[in-house]
């Protein structure tokens, strides 16, 4: 299942249980703004992703598991807490390209 399907599953569970976005967000343990954005197809960070999976009752393995990059980049990121799939992919390629060109001895 593609990660973007998280939004569809959230909406389905909300509809089935009659929960508004704020009530659902309280149950998940994240802000309603973040949950609303994920429901629209934006991707959460890993911490929120895990909370949403727990709330949905999905084993995290049921969603494609995250495969760490060969050499996991260590990053501080100043950005929106969620991103569109296109942006998340472009950011990943930017970081991977930068890491490949930025060896330890470059000081």
């Amino acid at each position, binding site marked *: 299942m593609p990660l973007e399907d998280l939004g569809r599953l959230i909406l389905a569970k909300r509809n089935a249980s009659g929960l508004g976005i704020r009530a659902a967000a309280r149950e998940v343990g994240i802000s309603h703004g973040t949950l609303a954005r994920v429901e629209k197809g934006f*991707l959460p960070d890993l911490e929120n992703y895990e909370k949403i999976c727990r709330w949905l009752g999905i084993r995290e393995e049921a969603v494609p598991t995250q*495969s760490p990059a060969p050499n996991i980049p260590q990053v501080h990121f100043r950005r929106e807490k969620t991103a569109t799939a296109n942006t998340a992919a*472009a950011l990943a390629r930017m970081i991977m390209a930068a890491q490949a060109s930025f060896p330890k001895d470059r000081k």
Partner: protein
Amino acid sequence: MIALRRGFKTWCENAARGYRRELGLSPIGRLDPRILAKHLRITIWAPAEIPGLDPKDVQHLTVTARESWSAATLRNGDASLIIINNRHSETRQNNSLAHEIGHIVLRHEPAKMYVTPDGLMMMSEYNDMHEEEATWFAGAILLPRDALLDVIRRGLPDRDAADYFGVSVAVFQMRRNRTGVDIQLTRRRGTWAP
């Protein structure tokens, strides 16, 4: 608002003074974060300067999704690289750079970046305390209390003061409010009442 560690704000003011001294600047002078980064041996790249990054990705990150991100810092051993969104205004870039320098100087543990099988980026966590500390550090470095007191005493309009220090008016006013310099000056004039 998150409570900062005891003594943290004072430490930031001392750091702002110390960096200006090392760079030969006045304690109340403007500090260009690009010069500070060079002094600290931190590399800065714009997306277009990253070798091997597809121009379509550069286009997406700097035009289509330019409001989605401001900057990223990569750590590799002792070396640090800041990637800056150079399509933002100069004042916003200054603030983003000072913020990222804060993460490096404060030795904040970076998050781990994972790439899903679909090629999407997911970060391991978002540390609110680290973000708050880096934000405060950036404000103190760009606009130390001594500098704020000086421009307010001289009656410089907020817009002119913000331009001089290379920050937005919003950042200038935020520092003015959060540092309590106005109250400090009013007390000295003997007109402050709790």
